[in-house]
């Protein structure tokens, strides 16, 4: 029998058992927010286990079908925190039909579980399982609003794009398996480096990466994201912007580690993809008039920035850059989406002209939104700026390292240009919310709900604290060390 | 198997000594050894099944059934063809005189009364019927459907063992092959239903596929449970696992190993009937609602292919039931003795026993068909998912527990509880499992009586004795 690393899977098992409990709660409780509460509790428990694992030094390369190293642990923490926050905020959304609300929370929990599985995958089977878990729950979350044409469009688009990506991934995986004779990603990596020149293997590996790129919204696999984010309930959009991306980033980091540990070609390709992605994301965001579309494209751009960090990945300090970037992204993006959701509860739309004058009706939400957007735009002293700074520094360091990767400096320039470019769409949202005066007709409705506000406050605070604390810590470290 | 394989090779060699290439010799030997016996057994039974069914239906409804068509028509035709120079009237007279002749008359009466002559008449009629492909259909799908139906009915037979030596291919994944190849039938029905571009066929096809896939699950679970019990997926080995060396060979049969097996057998039988769309589960044809369901647009022998596939499937169900629960081709008594016979005799006896078991299973199926009214589609679906699937799962785990318990107590082997009645302790496990399952059955029945929906009036009338008039 194959030894199963049960000890390493405890977070997944906790979340799975929690999902079963939530399923029972969905059947038995009439108050559907109980489902979200059970799910949030499971997330907290799993988070405790993961933190315990991290503190217990469960690093190293413990494989089977699952690998648990620093990357996995960081991704697990990110996914679990995001799932927890989303589950707390989700019952406040007024987009969900109350009778079916429980299933929504269940799917959200499933997305979190899928993220965990995906992030820790060490063989092709687990990788595909996690990918499909993320996808299937994602499809349900995207098309959740019943009798809504946009939601239907979002769900269908997500399914069609997702199915295509999944099929390509599967083709790639089957070729990888056939050519390398192993399901283990590390073994496949050895084969890849051994038969470095085999074009079939390279093509198969590229195909297998399509799924990861799809989840990470790397151009040209980002095309679905604006439509899906716009049509899906805002909480779903928030989930798509965070959970699959964190998990996929972990997978990408693992794959880089195993498949191309010191390949200049690979990091060049990744950097190019990153630059293209961020440019495409920022340029398309310029003309948008819907807050969720802008946020979706901002997610694409941020995926591009992240790719740059991955391009210098195996180098020392890059793990910190990637991790910190993801953490900051998690806080500010989640905050922005939750704020938009709360505004949307009142306006019933995320179009910019409908959001006009929000600050008069919902000052707290608008202010938090502003904070998160400013951070997303990369303006000091917020988390977004610090994250970009750390990122830029590691890219420049990589470029100056003198090992033939001077082109990273060009990427750094592209990053700077994009950072400036990306500010404009955010400014449009800010102007709509804070400057323009809206009509008072939309004043009615949209009660405040404390859990979602609490989540918003946590995100905003994290944005602020991360922005300020990291430089301080870094300074102190330089001072002391 | 070995001797069989040797003679197979010898035949292949003979073919190639006639100047054929080696591979063709192998294929021809395959035809002679695998396919011809298979078709020789299955086809006549599938054909006779229709007559069999009409006679049984008639008996159950106190009618006589097909009883008028004799062989005189065939004789007329034969004489006319044989003596083309004579006048038609003269030939006919000759044929009638021939029929009046003693032995021929006896044969005529036999074939008339049993309705077998009717089969020939039906065949001749059907072959003369126009094969219509309606103008609006999806030609490819419509034309492909009967091929798939027949393939889906015959391919599972490849792995069914008829004797120790006679088996098409003893695949190690036999049960999986049965499920996989049998699945072609669902595709065939879907193609027929969709491809016909007719509202009735569409409804019938959809219903049929929903029903087939639903009942696939309990059928599969039952097969899985038996595979677990016997420790193999190969049908030949499954039969071998049910061998009992004593005079009373039937003590080794799966059916009586555990009460869970009895329930599983019932579940399998019901679900299998539903999977091949026979009354009371024939919602897909439902002639009173859907004209003729998925095969409304099929005419003549194109429809006949579906009918033949259906009867072949009833035969398959009988064969599977025998293999899974009734010891396959083994005789109920004195199997030991039969096994010691020379291969040919052994094969003949075993094929006969297997066929007899199949016929009993088919007969019960027909009995059910002509007793019960049709269920509604919603009842059919609920029966599958809410009753049969949980029941099969309970039995599967009951069996697994019995195996665990048996092993715990016996510490040597598992299962085979009844087969080893000399040991004291396995008897306890055996008794315990009967007690457990018996209690469960009683509890189920009580619960069903207390909380279940009232029976449909038609069913109640059929299942309770009519009040007698004073």
């Amino acid at each position, binding site marked *: 029998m194959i030894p199963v690393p049960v000890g390493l899977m405890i977070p997944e098992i906790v979340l799975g058992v929690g999902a079963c409990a939530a399923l029972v709660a969905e059947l038995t409780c009439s108050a559907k927010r109980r489902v979200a509460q059970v799910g949030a509790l499971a997330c907290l428990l799993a988070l405790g286990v993961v933190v315990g694992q991290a503190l217990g030094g469960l690093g190293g390369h413990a494989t089977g079908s699952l690998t648990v190293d620093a990357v996995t642990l960081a991704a697990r923490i990110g996914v679990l925190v995001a799932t927890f926050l989303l589950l707390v905020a989700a019952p406040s959304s007024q987009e969900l039909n109350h009778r079916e609300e429980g299933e929504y929370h269940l799917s959200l929990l499933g997305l979190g579980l899928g993220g965990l599985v995906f992030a820790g995958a060490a063989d092709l089977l687990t990788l595909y399982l996690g990918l499909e878990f993320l996808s299937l729950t994602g499809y349900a979350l995207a098309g959740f609003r019943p009798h809504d044409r946009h939601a239907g469009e979002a769900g269908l688009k997500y399914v069609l794009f997702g199915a295509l990506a999944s099929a390509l991934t599967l083709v790639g995986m089957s070729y990888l398996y056939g050519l390398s004779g192993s399901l283990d990603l590390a073994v496949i990596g050895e084969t890849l480096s051994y038969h470095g020149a085999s074009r079939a293997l390279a093509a198969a590996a590229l195909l297998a990466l399509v799924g990861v790129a799809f989840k990470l919204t790397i151009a040209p696999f980002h095309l679905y994201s604006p439509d899906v984010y716009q049509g899906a309930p805002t909480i779903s959009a928030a989930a798509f912007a965070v959970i699959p991306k964190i998990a996929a980033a972990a997978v990408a980091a693992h794959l880089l580690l195993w498949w191309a540990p010191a390949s200049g070609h690979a990091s060049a390709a990744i950097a190019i993809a990153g630059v293209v992605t961020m440019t495409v994301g920022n340029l398309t965001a310029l003309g948008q008039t819907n807050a969720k579309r802008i946020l979706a494209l901002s997610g694409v751009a941020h995926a591009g920035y992240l790719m740059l960090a991955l391009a210098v990945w195996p180098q020392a300090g890059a793990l910190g850059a990637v991790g910190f970037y993801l953490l900051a992204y998690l806080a500010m993006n989640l905050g922005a989406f939750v704020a938009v959701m709360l505004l949307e509860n009142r306006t019933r739309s995320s179009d910019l002209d409908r959001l006009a004058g929000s600050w008069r009706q919902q000052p707290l939400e608008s202010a938090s939104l502003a904070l998160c957007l400013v951070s997303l735009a990369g303006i000091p002293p917020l988390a977004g700026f610090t994250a970009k700074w750390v990122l830029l520094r590691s890219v420049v360091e990589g470029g100056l390292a003198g090992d033939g990767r001077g082109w990273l400096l060009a990427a750094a320039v592209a990053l700077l240009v994009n950072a400036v470019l990306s500010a404009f769409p955010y400014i449009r949202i800010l102007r709509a919310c804070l400057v323009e005066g809206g009509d008072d007709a939309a004043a009615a409705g949209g009660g405040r709900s404390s859990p979602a506000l609490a989540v918003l406050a946590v995100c905003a605070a994290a944005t602020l604290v991360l922005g300020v604390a990291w430089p301080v810590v870094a300074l102190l470290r330089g001072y002391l060390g | 198997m070995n001797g069989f394989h040797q003679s197979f090779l010898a035949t292949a060699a003979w073919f190639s000594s006639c100047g054929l290439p080696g591979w063709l010799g192998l294929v021809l030997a395959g035809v002679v050894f695998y396919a011809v016996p298979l078709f020789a057994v299955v086809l006549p039974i599938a054909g006779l099944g229709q007559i069999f069914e009409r006679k049984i239906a008639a008996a159950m409804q106190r009618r006589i059934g097909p009883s008028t068509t004799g062989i005189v028509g065939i004789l007329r035709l034969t004489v006319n063809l044989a003596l083309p120079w004579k006048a038609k009237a003269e030939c006919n007279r000759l044929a009638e005189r021939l029929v009046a002749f003693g032995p021929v008359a006896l044969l005529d009466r036999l074939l008339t009364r049993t309705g077998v002559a009717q089969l020939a008449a039906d065949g001749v009629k059907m072959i003369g019927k*126009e094969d219509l492909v*309606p103008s609006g259909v999806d030609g490819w799908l419509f034309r492909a459907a009967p091929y798939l139906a027949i393939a889906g009915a015959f391919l599972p*037979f490849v792995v069914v063992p008829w004797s120790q030596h006679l088996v098409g291919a003893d695949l190690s994944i036999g049960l999986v092959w049965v499920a996989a190849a049998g699945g072609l039938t669902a595709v065939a029905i879907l193609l027929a239903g969709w491809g016909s571009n007719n509202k009735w066929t569409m409804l019938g096809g959809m219903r049929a596929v*929903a029903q087939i896939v639903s009942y696939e699950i309990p059928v599969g679970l039952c097969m899985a449970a038996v*595979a677990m019990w016997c420790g193999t997926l190969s049908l030949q080995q499954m039969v071998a696992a049910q061998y009992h060396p004593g005079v009373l060979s039937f003590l080794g049969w799966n059916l009586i190993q555990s009460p869970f097996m009895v329930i599983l057998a019932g579940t399998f039988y019901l679900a299998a009937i539903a999977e091949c769309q026979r009354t009371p589960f024939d919602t897909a044809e439902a002639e009173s609602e859907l004209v003729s369901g998925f095969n409304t647009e099929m005419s003549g022998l194109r429809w006949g*292919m579906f009918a033949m596939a259906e009867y072949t499937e009833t035969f398959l169900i009988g064969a599977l039931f025998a293999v899974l629960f009734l010891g396959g081709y083994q005789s109920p008594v004195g199997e030991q003795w039969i096994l010691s016979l020379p291969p040919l005799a052994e094969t003949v006896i075993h094929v006969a026993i297997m066929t007899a078991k199949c016929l009993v299973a088919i007969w019960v199926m027909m009995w059910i068909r002509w007793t019960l009214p049709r269920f509604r589609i*919603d009842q059919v679906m609920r029966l599958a998912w809410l009753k049969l699937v949980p029941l099969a799962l309970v039995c599967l785990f009951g069996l697994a527990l019995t195996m665990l318990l048996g092993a715990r107590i016996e510490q040597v082997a598992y299962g085979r509880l009844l087969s080893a009645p000399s040991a004291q302790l396995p008897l306890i496990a055996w008794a315990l499992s009967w007690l457990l399952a018996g209690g469960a059955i009683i509890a189920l029945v009580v619960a069903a009586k207390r909380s279940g929906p009232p029976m449909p009036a038609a069913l109640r009338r059929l299942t309770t004795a009519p009040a007698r008039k004073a």
Partner: protein
Amino acid sequence: MADPAILAASTATAGYSDYLAIAVVGALAIGMVAGILWAVWFVTRVVGRITTTPSKTSTYECGETPVGPAWQRFNLRFYLVAIVFLIFDVELVLVLPTLPLFAPAIAAGHGVAVFLKIFLFVATLLLGLVYAAAKGDFAWDKSKHG
């Protein structure tokens, strides 16, 4: 005893001789249908000279002229059943090859562990079945489900 060509062929097909039987039976089944349908064609069209007319080849709709194509949308319930089936079919595919190994596992002394693993797997699926049933996915009469 056999001629070398046959022996060579049989050793070459040793692992595949089972599939030879399948291929032969499948080909015969297909051939039988083709032959019968060809015979029908021969008897009706060549010998019998039956011709078709437009009204003969129209689809059957109780004698009326068919109204529109039948390729329309169908009830969503079939889709739900298909989904549930898919899940349970995958279960079967995973369970079928596993279960025959249960007996050897008992003999090797880890029967309880294997039993628990299979049980947990199936129980999780069963929970899904209960959920689907409670949500009314198998209640096909409309009165019980929205």
